[in-house]
């Protein structure tokens, strides 16, 4: 039985699943339910400065994108940081941590970009016994208009500055939560590292409008006929999050910086993927908000089972295993040549591969009057679109050609040796072979 106990920045938790700072972690009641359900840790809903709490809208805070049968694929929110008094949150955090010493409890913080503000709140957070803090530099809506959240996260210099203050006034681990609403996530990550951050967590939510009401022409979610961009999350954002995580994991400037992975983690498989791309743990929100805390049973059992199958005994053995395989396009092997192959026994003759290839790709699939679809090797560039649109999993596969065979498309012999764009004759910048 694999051991799911995770040590992230010296913070131990019985499994790598933390609840992200969000509505599920807004108060003691919810967090206790989460811990009772088996969650490894929580990042408490973001705290603001002492004083009158923020207010939220009194209409819809969420909008959604659905798949078939109303399966929620993406969620958008315009909720702000906690709208409860700081003191109440701190008291509750202290009580919960005392009762659940084996679980991770992280305080998320967002206060104005002034040293005094951070200096004021950090000791009070420390008193709660929280295991660490997460700096919310990511929220893309509302607070960013007041110079906080993503407004900080989009300026690497601010990230570095605030991180420094936190390391100065706080002794426990500091995690910097990054916004994806930037062009190159490596820059804010490097800034966090330079400021002394112990880790980064990403991604926060993505600027989004879920839909437009075509009767009222109001964006959704609509507040009295108007809408504001919200933060997008859920399964739909996972590919973006995976890419951003991988960029940080493989960049020489940030390689080795611990990462807490966030973005659409819905099943154990998503978690395993994030971990393999370098995350020491993962944070979950939308899946819990969609299905409730009980999903932790599948998340832990699934990860454990997969690790057993693969012979991994500890989560740390999986961390970063996929990172060496993430590379730049220019280093991909251009001598790797594959051809689509259709398994006629599995084919149900829907013709989607044909339509896709004929209309939008390389005219590399033939169709007979009795609906037999076959790949024309002379035309197939192995783009994979037919595989992607085929409704039958495993019906169409990409079969690599062996070295020595002649590619019927180009008439050239498949080479055994690896060769990439950097040395390709068509590349004006190609280095001469030495």
């Amino acid at each position, binding site marked *: 039985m694999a051991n799911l106990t995770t040590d992230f920045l010296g913070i131990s938790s019985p499994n790598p699943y933390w609840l992200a700072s969000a509505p599920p972690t807004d108060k003691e009641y919810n967090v206790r339910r989460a811990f009772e359900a088996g969650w490894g840790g929580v990042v408490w809903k973001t705290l603001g400065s002492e004083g009158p709490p923020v207010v939220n809208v009194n209409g819809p805070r969420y909008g959604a994108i659905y798949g*078939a*049968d*109303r399966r929620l694929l993406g969620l958008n929110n315009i909720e702000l940081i906690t709208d409860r008094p700081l003191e109440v949150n701190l008291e509750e955090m202290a009580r919960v941590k005392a009762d659940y010493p084996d679980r991770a409890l992280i305080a998320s913080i967002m206060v104005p970009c002034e040293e005094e503000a951070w200096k004021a709140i950090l000791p009070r957070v420390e008193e709660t016994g929280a295991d660490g803090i997460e700096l919310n530099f990511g929220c893309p809506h509302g607070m960013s208009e007041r110079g906080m959240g993503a407004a900080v996260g989009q300026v690497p210099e601010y990230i570095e500055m605030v991180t420094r203050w936190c390391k100065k006034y706080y002794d426990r681990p500091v995690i910097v939560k990054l916004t994806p609403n930037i062009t190159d996530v490596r820059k804010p990550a490097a800034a966090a590292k330079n400021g002394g951050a112990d880790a980064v967590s990403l991604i926060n939510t993505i600027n989004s409008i879920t839909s437009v009401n075509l009767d009222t022409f109001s964006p959704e979610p609509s507040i009295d006929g108007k809408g504001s961009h919200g933060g997008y999350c859920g399964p739909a954002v996972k590919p973006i999050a995976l890419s951003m995580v991988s960029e940080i994991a493989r960049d020489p400037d940030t390689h080795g910086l611990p990462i807490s992975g966030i973005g659409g983690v819905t099943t154990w498989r998503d978690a395993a993927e994030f971990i393999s791309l370098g995350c020491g743990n993962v944070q979950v929100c939308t899946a819990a908000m969609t299905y409730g805390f009980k999903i932790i049973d599948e998340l832990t059992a699934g990860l454990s089972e997969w690790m057993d199958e693969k012979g991994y005994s500890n989560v740390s053995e999986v961390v970063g295993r996929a990172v060496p395989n993430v590379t730049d396009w220019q280093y991909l092997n251009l001598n790797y040549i594959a051809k689509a192959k259709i398994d006629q026994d599995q084919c*149900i*003759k*829907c*013709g*989607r591969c*044909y*339509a896709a290839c004929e209309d939008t790709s390389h005219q590399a699939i033939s*169709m007979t009057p009795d*609906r037999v679809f076959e790949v024309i090797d002379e035309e197939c560039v192995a783009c994979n679109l037919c595989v992607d649109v085929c*409704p*039958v999993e495993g019906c169409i596969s990409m079969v690599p050609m062996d070295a020595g065979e002649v590619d019927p498309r180009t008439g050239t012999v498949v080479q055994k040796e690896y060769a990439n764009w950097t040395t390709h004759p068509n590349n004006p910048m190609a280095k001469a072979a030495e």
Partner: protein
Amino acid sequence: MAQGQMAPGIVSGRLSSDELTSNFSDLHAPLAPHEAAVAADRCYFCYDAPCITACPTDIDIPLFIRQIQAGQPQAAGRTILEQNILGGMCARVCPTETLCEEACVREAAEGKPVEIGRLQRFATDDLMATGEHPFERAPVTGKTVAVIGAGPAGLACAHRLAMLGHDVVIHETKPKPGGLNEYGIAAYKSTNDFAQAEVDWLLKIGGIAIETGSVLGETISLQGLQENYDAVFLSIGLAGVNALRSQGAEKEGVRHAVDFISDVRQASDLAHLPVGRNVVVIGGGMTAVDAAVKSKLLGAEHVTIAYRRGRDAMGASRYEQDLAASHGVRIMTNVQPVAIHGNGAAAEIELEYTASQDGKLSGTGETIRVQADQVLKAIGQTLEGAPEGLTLDGNKIAVSGAGRTSISGVWAGGDCATGGEDLTVTAVAEGRDAAMDIHATLVS
């Protein structure tokens, strides 16, 4: 007080009104919007989709399903009705399991096709609920066409001709239009008087007059029609029924299944409709299944379908056979009637086992007796009352091309004409296509 299933003889009121109402409610409840969205999402939008090929009216099924997915069921309805003006009825009565849904690639893949029939009903119901007719007439041409018979073929032909600007008079023998949609087909497939509602809706196109009580060969003649109209379309169906050549076939309690079905369809109160305690239906087609299931739903205790060949040879699809079986109908195969016994009224039917040798069916000599106070004959309908001078092919009016008969200016379609299966949807296609051919002839 209901008489109960075990009351002897052919009696009415075997079941309570509540039971009858429940029994004759929709066989398939209509899809709710969310159900329709989920069902529609299963469509793969196949290239050159096999379901379209399998549909006698060539409805663009993937397109209308995509329109449902995209939240526009009325646009989907229009896509259907452009090809098949009786798409609402066809959605209810088509044997989809042998047509579009059999061809659906998901049937091949997992034995669970996209529910095309129910989705079609969802779309057409939604459109028809608006009460508005979706098509407009072209400017009036001044040409007139006589359509003989207000069944599916006649209605489809008339609608298309009217849409193209011609004036149409439909001559119908029966008091109500609709043909088998009104007088045949299973009641539990066409609830709430849908057949008449559909005809009323169809007539909103304008330019169509219906004359009921108009009988070809009696009140009207083909020659007279040819003189008074620019074209004639014959859609007279199969008005005759095959005779049962068995000893005792004349006994009380023996009748044609189509008449029984018509009585059920026209009954104002099913509690007043008599049915036997022990019903035997002779035949193996959809009519046999309909009559058998209806008998059961009316409260008959034992209902048996007796068919002379094997199950695979039955005209009723496997789905229809299972429908009968699930209602408690017993299906006996490889038996043929030899005699109906009883003192004046039928009491028993004597069936002889059959065997097939070199494709030829013959009795084995071994017989079995089954209690039968009511015997319903569903052994096929025949052409009756076809005007003289028309070339026949077998027992149907011979047609070539889009319903052209041997007489110039006279077209025919539906069950009375050659070509295609005897289905509502086939009749619609033939009526529509003949209309296009008539139009091309009239305007050339």
